């Protein structure tokens, strides 16, 4: 396996945003079966080292391709872009407003009458927004509108952060 090649070619998948997750999992499993250090438990140190490197690469590749956000970032990076560069911060005003409203809702949530239902409602909405953004990214990327795709990536990152916070909040409130 040539570890300098991109994740898609090494995992035998077509390079694009739409991805067959089952095929990805299968491919990762098969490659780990062949390259994992456990397959070289009785071999020399050099082979062990090589196996650790290959297995690390495969875990990294699997983690990136499986995640809708990381996959999007990776595709743009393959095009020589830096969607999350610290200088890259411009966002549409309506999206920022929506973010602030969602954040306010989350802050007021612990005081709600039916906390569980409210959290669920919020989580569902975030999930729907996340799905929509994935569709938006695929459309922009396939049409080679890379600056537009970049904005979608930053939106996705915002939403994932909110999802994480919503999840943490659920853990704290419902325990």
């Amino acid at each position, binding site marked *: 396996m040539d570890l300098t090649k991109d994740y898609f070619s090494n995992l035998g998948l077509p390079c694009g945003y739409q991805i067959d997750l089952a095929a990805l*999992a299968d491919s990762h*499993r098969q490659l*780990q*079966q062949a390259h*994992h*250090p*456990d*397959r070289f*438990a*009785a071999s020399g140190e050099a082979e062990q080292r090589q196996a*650790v*490197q290959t*297995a*690390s*690469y495969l*875990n*990294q590749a*699997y*983690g990136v391709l499986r995640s809708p956000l990381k996959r999007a970032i990776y595709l743009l990076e393959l095009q020589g872009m830096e969607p999350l560069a610290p200088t890259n911060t411009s966002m549409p005003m309506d999206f920022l407003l929506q973010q602030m409203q969602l954040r306010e809702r989350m802050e007021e949530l612990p005081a709600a009458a039916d906390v569980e239902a409210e959290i669920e409602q919020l989580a569902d909405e975030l999930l729907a927004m996340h799905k929509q953004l994935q569709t938006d990214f695929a459309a922009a990327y396939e049409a080679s509108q890379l600056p537009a795709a970049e904005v979608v990536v930053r939106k996705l990152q915002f939403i994932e952060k909110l999802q994480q916070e919503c*999840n*943490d909040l*659920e*853990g*704290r409130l419902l*325990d």
Partner: protein
Amino acid sequence: MALLQIAEPGQSAKPHQRKLAVGIDLGTTHSLVATVRSGRAETLADSKGTHLLPSVVRYRADELPQVGTKALQHLVDDAANTIMSVKRLMGRGLQDVTRLGEQMPYIFEACESGMPMLRTAAGLKSPVQVSADILRVLAQRGEASLGGDLVGAVITVPAYFDDAQRQATKDAATLSGIQVLRLLNEPTAAAVAYGLDNEQESTIAVFDLGGGTFDISILRMQKGVFEVLSTGGDSALGGDDFDHAIANWVCDQRNIQNLELAQQRFLLRQARQAKEQLSDTAVTTITFADWPETSCPADIELTREQLNSLLDPVIAKTLRATKKALRDAGMTIDDINQVVMVGGSTRVIRVQEKVAALFGRPPLTSIDPDRVVALGAARQADVLVGNQTGDEMLLLDVLPLSLGLETMGGLVEKVIDRNTPIPVARAQEFTTYQDGQVAMAIHVLQGERDLVQDCRSLARFELRGIPPMAAGAAKVRVTFQVDADGLLEVGARELTSGVATTVQVKPSYGLSENEIADMIKASWSNVDADRGARSLREQQVEADRLLASITIAMEADGERLLNENERQAIIKQMETLIVARNGDDHHAIAKQIDILAKATDTFAGRRMDDSIKRALAGKAVDNI
């Protein structure tokens, strides 16, 4: 290629010679060794037919150490030379150990590396050496049972063991002459023991409740690959808490106060017996027949119902940790197809009932919970030496605790998050903080909290020879490589000059098991405190940076470019900032930083003009 094989008649070389490998469960109270024979995993007994080896070693002058039952007999009469529960000392520093030492009758001494040594009749012994003596007995038992030299062994460790504890375990095996095929997490081993015949895809929860620790792991099994999705737990929670809850209830019922040590032990023993009896009967009697005092309280009846109400609060904690592990894995209760029970405390009926109620299905209990870990390890060992052919089993584990680096102000920047699949390699870039900085100290930490002091320090090393540059210009790339055993190697390289250094992380000190679990737990309960602490440190760093740059500017140009009043105003404001910086209100620091920055605006402007003037001085207008 061999064209001829010459062998004695009747002893012809077998076409498929099996390699001898064992699985070892190196436990806190007892250890086990197991192997796979004729396709079946089984634990191996000593010459007297006993399977469990007490994890106890007794050292004597000029004689070989006694290990197991023989050593156990001298626990009271030769306490200082009879070492038990050594697993709790593995990978710890003297400081951590002396804290535990209050409950341990051993004499500790420091050695050069900082590793704690136990003083015994046979000289100084490190916890690694004591563990090696236990492992040696188990390996010998394996060789005697199997009739040949072992190729290697799989040794199990708790899922929450950090880098230091794993490294110490591996060192002990090396010391005892065992080739370690793999360190395997105990819950993963248990899942393997149950999961092998299962060809279909399933998601498994492993519920491991021991005497003093609780571990929960979520795994997915698909086509022979076991993938750990998350691990969690509480290493200060276990069956001992059940006994304490019962004993406390008895004390309340009979109005017993100020227990002496002997009475406490008596009560805990009675509590444990009652707990075990109530697995079979609906009601039991706690008697005070041998109560170590003259006035003996009346016997007391304990029903299973009453017992359940005493155990439920403890069990509820395990269920909370279970739900958290499910969330970490991105799973819900409905996704779990199988629940595996490990550890002696899962024999308690109430635990089984509650776990069954949570998951909506009865847990698997058909394999002895004390042996299931060793049996799974034996399976894995058999695969690793290549005795299985065809569709081989593969275990993909995760990192139990996050790894990170110390950054300015005593903060930890995470480089690899917990529950990341291993092996894993990550790199992170850092930059210099001061002009002309030529060295960088790198401090590697493990844990979930934001501050260095709350995480475990794994290693410190220095990258020297960085070419002097302006602050922020040198780029140092730090790489982490974690192997399949969960062991870490760290390297650092300055990118413009190529100066590099690599260390195998070999820590010599550590912290208690409780602290590790607390580190995970606390990262939840202290989220708010951490956020405040982080803001405070950030503002303090910012304040220091500003104060340092103004001090330098004042020394260089203060006399020349400022009059006395202006100079005094700036110095006064610097003093105000220093006072705020040493306080703990990050808002106040931010405010004073702002004021000081504004107060020095004019000074900064004059310095700029001055440097331009000087750059132009003495040059003809035509040359500009």
